[in-house]
């Protein structure tokens, strides 16, 4: 039924295209990496596989933020926390896989516990030697945190700035907590020196390609699931909550449950992104909880265009590619470029790249309509559902302090 709707209705081509591209990348890139000889022009170097694989995880993270921010108006400044928790769950599995190959050769304890003189494995490390358990935790831990946090916050109707700030407080508190060596997660150094994943060497080229493919498929699935959610009646409800939360209440909807569901699903997606990220970069440490990281995710989403599903993916890929390039080519200048980008995007591209594209297409359609109208024909410009759904900036509760909107040059 669901897939029937997806393929038959063709309701948003760009979703379809994105999924096809991602699946294609998941197949083609590993093949070009592993099977094509290194000298060939079609060879994808392992370096690129690792790099783009990392970007894809970021893209999934940005997509998860898009679900809550773009569609539901919840600006989470703590999404990096869910990402990091998923990453830690995966990292714990990878640490347990090292077994006695650690530098001290202790079969049970990870190295960092050995040299801090720990005698036995803390209880919360139990079970992580099993992949299925770790995989479950990857989703459960961020999901549960989001559920508990959201249940408190949304039920008490913490909204707008207040919500953003407490999500930031949440990730900041976790950052400080994970820095503590006593927590048993390796402190500042985090978890590293991974050897195997599911019995395959994490550093092997084939494993890396497989992880790349897994990331691409996960992202494709993420796109599909997000699309399913936002194109259902629930998705309409999400947008309704973003537009006028209290109005939905007067219609009998429980806005807090709507938000809670979206927030939890989003956290799970972020957790999965983190879990795929860790084996590819080879380390997870508290730095991922840094509030600055979470703000950067917001920026990727804004650059691509929030509330558009493909926008955040494009934003994450572009900004990170830019960051990779700048930090290598113009290391002294890259913060200027990054900062300038944020300013420029907010000023001139309030709806992001995808929003700009829609605007341009709408303008063209408008011209066609007026031409057609003059010719006496009647063309109905059906507005693209997802792209345009965005058009009202998600002000809602936010607009209050400064009153009515001022002129906005880019609109």
């Amino acid at each position, binding site marked *: 039924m669901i897939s029937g709707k997806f393929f038959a209705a063709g309701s948003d081509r760009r979703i379809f295209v994105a999924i096809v591209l991602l699946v294609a990348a998941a197949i083609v890139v590993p093949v070009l990496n592993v099977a094509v000889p290194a000298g060939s022009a079609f060879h994808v170097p392992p370096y690129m596989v690792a790099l783009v694989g990392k970007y894809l995880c970021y893209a999934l993270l940005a997509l998860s933020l898009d679900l809550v921010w773009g569609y539901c108006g919840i600006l989470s400044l703590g999404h990096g926390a869910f990402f990091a928790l998923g990453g830690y769950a995966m990292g714990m599995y990878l640490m347990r896989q090292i077994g006695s190959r650690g530098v001290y050769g202790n079969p049970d304890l990870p190295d960092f516990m050995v040299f801090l003189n720990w005698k036995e494995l803390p209880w919360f490390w139990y079970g992580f030697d099993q992949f299925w358990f770790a995989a479950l935790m990857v989703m459960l831990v961020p999901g549960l945190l989001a559920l508990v946090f959201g249940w408190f916050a949304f039920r008490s109707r913490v909204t707008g700035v207040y919500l953003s700030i407490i999500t930031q407080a949440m990730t900041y508190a976790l950052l400080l907590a994970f820095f503590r060596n006593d927590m048993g997660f390796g402190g500042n150094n985090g978890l590293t020196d991974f050897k195997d994943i599911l019995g395959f060497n994490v550093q092997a080229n084939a494993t890396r390609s497989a992880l790349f493919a897994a990331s691409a498929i996960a992202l494709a699935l993420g796109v599909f699931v997000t699309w399913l959610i936002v194109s259902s009646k629930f998705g309409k409800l999400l*947008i*309704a909550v973003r537009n*006028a939360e*209290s*109005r939905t*209440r*007067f*219609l*009998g909807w*429980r806005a807090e449950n709507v938000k809670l569901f979206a927030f939890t699903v989003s956290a799970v997606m972020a957790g999965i992104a983190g879990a795929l990220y860790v084996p590819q970069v080879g380390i997870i440490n508290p730095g991922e909880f840094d509030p600055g990281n979470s703000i950067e995710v917001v920026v990727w989403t804004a650059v691509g265009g929030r509330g558009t599903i493909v926008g955040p993916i494009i934003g994450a890929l572009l900004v990170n590619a830019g960051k990779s390039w700048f930090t290598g080519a113009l290391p002294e200048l890259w913060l200027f470029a990054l900062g300038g980008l944020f300013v420029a995007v907010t000023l001139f591209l309030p709806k992001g790249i995808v929003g700009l594209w829609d605007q341009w297409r709408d303008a063209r359609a408008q011209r066609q309509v007026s031409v057609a109208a003059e010719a006496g024909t009647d063309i109905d410009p059906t507005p693209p559902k997802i792209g345009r759904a965005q058009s009202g900036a998600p002000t809602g509760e936010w607009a209050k302090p400064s009153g009515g909107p001022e002129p906005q040059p880019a609109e």
Partner: protein
Amino acid sequence: MSKSGTILYLDGVSVAFDGFRAINKLSLVLDRGEMRAIIGPNGAGKTTMMDIVTGKTRPDEGEVFFDGQVDLTRHDEAEIAMMGIGRKFQKPTVFDSHTVEDNLVLSLNGPRSIFPALFHRRSAEEARRIDDILGVTRLGDKRGALAANLSHGQKQWLEIGMLLAQDPKLLLVDEPVAGMTDAETEETARLLKDINQTHSIIVVEHDMHFVRELGVKVTCLHEGAVLSEGTLDFVSSDERVMEVYLGR
């Protein structure tokens, strides 16, 4: 006063914001099937009264009962809406980035939990009701238009349509005809009277022409309490009412 037979029963209700008494020992009773018009100058407490009935604001003291037995002060907005109290806001509040049709889809009465919404498919019955409502509210040709692009009057109609879709027992309608043409105003009055055949209604309105058109009992609020109650002619000839509206 007995609560039985009433659809809405307010007794001795007071609420204050930072020392300012918005509602002051207000008592108001609406019988089942009744339509009531409420008038009063700005700040008389009309909107706050609606906030109390719909659960947005908790009264400091007093009783608020729905349908003779439900204590509304113990429920929140969503529960109250599910019990059957619908509200149209003074400033038309529709979902701007949804189409007219989707606005109605979200308002149709039915299950209000997450998973049914996630796997919801529109039934023939729902499609028919939407068509009906679009016909009644004359928004048939705007079905696919974004609510944000509607005129003020059309938004008013859409919100009334949303109320209809919700199919509540009691409708609270705040200034339904602001921004409407005379013809539309008359049309709205006719529609409300029509709805009143099967529903109880409270209408807040400044437009005396419209209130006269409705031809129902009128309550005038002032400084959070009932100043005068009766037919429009009775109320408008009340000296205190005249003083409030004209005097100061």
